[in-house]
């Protein structure tokens, strides 16, 4: 495997509160290869969005990175000054958020927002920047881009706005795009269009994508690999097809079974008892142990490390301790 574009190691994010420090991300490690689409799934509170925010240095205070490191092309970015980080944001890491209106300034025309961003990151004239902006809007599928570029965000429909945000995220030709629930606010028919667009356009430009979503279907259609998060920890990571068809972690298995599909004949959905623990009460050992069907004594006391069970495949579960040893032996 080539050198990773983004490498996250043992990332810990904490929120100091009056009642003690909450650990929202606990020892998260993963890589994203150049040109790869890494999906990140988990339920609310699993720490998906927080991971994205930590990478781009936009954690809401009092949240802070309390340990670990984040490297972009082997350069550490978690320790950079806010000023240096600002230059990386937008230029080398683009962002697409759930609600397109939070990424767009309602008082500026789309033209102004795009040309400003282009000129911040590249030494080009106003006219050249505008030309690039029109080309970009055209590429993301906005009809009559040359005319519509002078419209304000509220003139666009939800799907079109998300296209503008994608154009905005890509205008400085970033190496990595972080898309946090990019289609959650959209209707299914529009969602499909936006997923296809993100996939195509990033492939075209060789940008890697961190796709954060709660929707396993979106991941299945888009990502190369998928990371499953549970209670701020990595449960499982691996190639999408393998994780979906042959999930190794009991949580992932439960999650897959609980999703109704358009093809299977099931009378009852698989049910994972209980709910994800609150950050104030993460169980000892494996965070999933109180809900796990296959829980063993060890799970209640020892926290499982991410065990490598195959090529690019890691599982944090004691059930796979033997597989991991075998894989290590080769």
């Amino acid at each position, binding site marked *: 495997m080539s050198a990773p574009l983004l490498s996250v190691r043992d990332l810990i994010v904490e929120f100091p509160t009056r009642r003690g420090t909450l650990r929202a991300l606990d020892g998260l490690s993963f890589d994203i290869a150049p040109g790869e689409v890494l999906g990140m799934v988990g339920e609310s509170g699993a720490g998906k969005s927080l991971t994205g925010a930590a990478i781009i240095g936009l954690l809401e205070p009092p949240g802070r990175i309390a340990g670990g490191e984040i490297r972009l092309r082997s350069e550490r970015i978690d320790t950079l000054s806010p000023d240096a980080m600002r230059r990386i944001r937008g230029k080398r890491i683009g962002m697409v958020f759930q609600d397109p209106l939070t990424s767009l300034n309602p008082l500026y025309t789309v033209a102004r927002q795009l040309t400003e961003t282009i000129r911040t990151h590249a030494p080009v004239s106003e006219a050249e920047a505008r030309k690039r902006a029109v080309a970009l809007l055209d590429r993301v599928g906005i009809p009559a881009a040359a005319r519509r570029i002078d419209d304000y965000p509220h003139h666009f429909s939800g799907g079109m706005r998300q296209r503008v945000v994608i154009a905005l995220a890509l205008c400085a030709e970033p190496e990595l795009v972080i898309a946090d629930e990019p289609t959650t606010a959209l209707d*299914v028919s529009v969602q*499909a269009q936006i997923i296809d667009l993100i996939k195509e356009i990033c492939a075209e430009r060789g940008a890697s994508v961190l796709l954060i979503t709660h929707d396993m279907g979106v991941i299945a259609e888009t990502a190369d690999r998928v990371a499953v998060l549970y209670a701020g920890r990595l449960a499982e990571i691996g190639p999408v097809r393998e994780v979906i068809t042959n999930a190794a972690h009991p949580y992932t298995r439960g999650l897959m*079974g609980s999703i109704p599909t358009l093809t299977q004949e099931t009378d009852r959905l698989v049910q994972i008892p209980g*709910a994800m623990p609150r950050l104030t009460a993460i169980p000892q050992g494996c965070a999933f142990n109180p809900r796990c069907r296959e829980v063993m004594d060890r799970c209640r006391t020892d926290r499982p490390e991410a065990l490598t069970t195959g090529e690019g495949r890691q599982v944090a579960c004691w059930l796979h301790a033997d597989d991991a040893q075998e894989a290590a032996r080769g």
Partner: protein
Amino acid sequence: MAEPLLQVQGLGRRFDISRPWLNRVLERQDRQFLTAVADVDFTINRGETYALVGESGSGKSTIAKMVVGLLPPTSGRIVFDGQVMAGTEGASMRALRRRFQMIFQDPFASLNPRWRVGEIIAEPIHRFGLLRGSAVTNRVGELLETVGLSAQDAEKYPHEFSGGQRQRIAIARALSSKPEFIVCDEPTSALDVSVQAQILNLMRDLQDELGLTYLFISHDLSVVRHMANRIGVLYLGRLVEEAEGKALFRAAHHPYTRMLLDAVPDLALSGRRRQPVEGEIPNPIDPPPGCSFHPRCPLVMDRCRTGTPPVIATQTGRAACHALTLAADV
């Protein structure tokens, strides 16, 4: 066997969205109307789950509100167990009201945060004067256990519960007046998938135990497929297709239904090439003439642009599409 419990006939709802009178006079504008629901007919048989599915703005929630009487229809009528509902007031309406209930989408908004769970669940019992004294407490405890909580939870406040547990409380409240018919408006779309599975399973169990009839409203096709006996597909306030549950997914007739099915992200990883979906839902204030789907339809013909398509029978139900009418005539 197929005894109709709820009949909806020619149901329509227009909203007056005109500007204030003075503005209209000064700016010489006419009144403006938004047609949220037009000419919708369907029948729900006792003991079945009828689902309405559609994207945002399709009129799903407006129909739900009209069915439970939260919103008066502007045209058409609703017949519940042989009694016409629209316009019914007073004692006979009260007697009718006890027999149907509603579950809302957002369990964070639908429960009064200042009331204890016990009071929330007992409210319908008091309203309809069903029980008195300690019998109420017993019944509340019973209901809490039916939905998988414990009788002691009656003393707690809603904020002490997670989203899934709150939705269970909302279900307990809906059950407290011993209804026959429950309107569920997106009951799981605010929940995580694993919790969604718990709630969907619970709703099915309750249906089997208590012989409930559901009107199930959702935008999520896979959830609808899992739950419904029959499905109605809405587009811009009109019912475009109705079919027997799983048959709709095997053989969709209306081009909109097909497009919608195609757009659902595929967990099965079949690698199918989906037909690109075009365009977005038009503005309901100024819907396209003729068939409102014609600007996005791959089968569009001249007559689609002028005439509203008639409803015709299909092998699996009925659909309103000029192309289907043409094919049937040949």
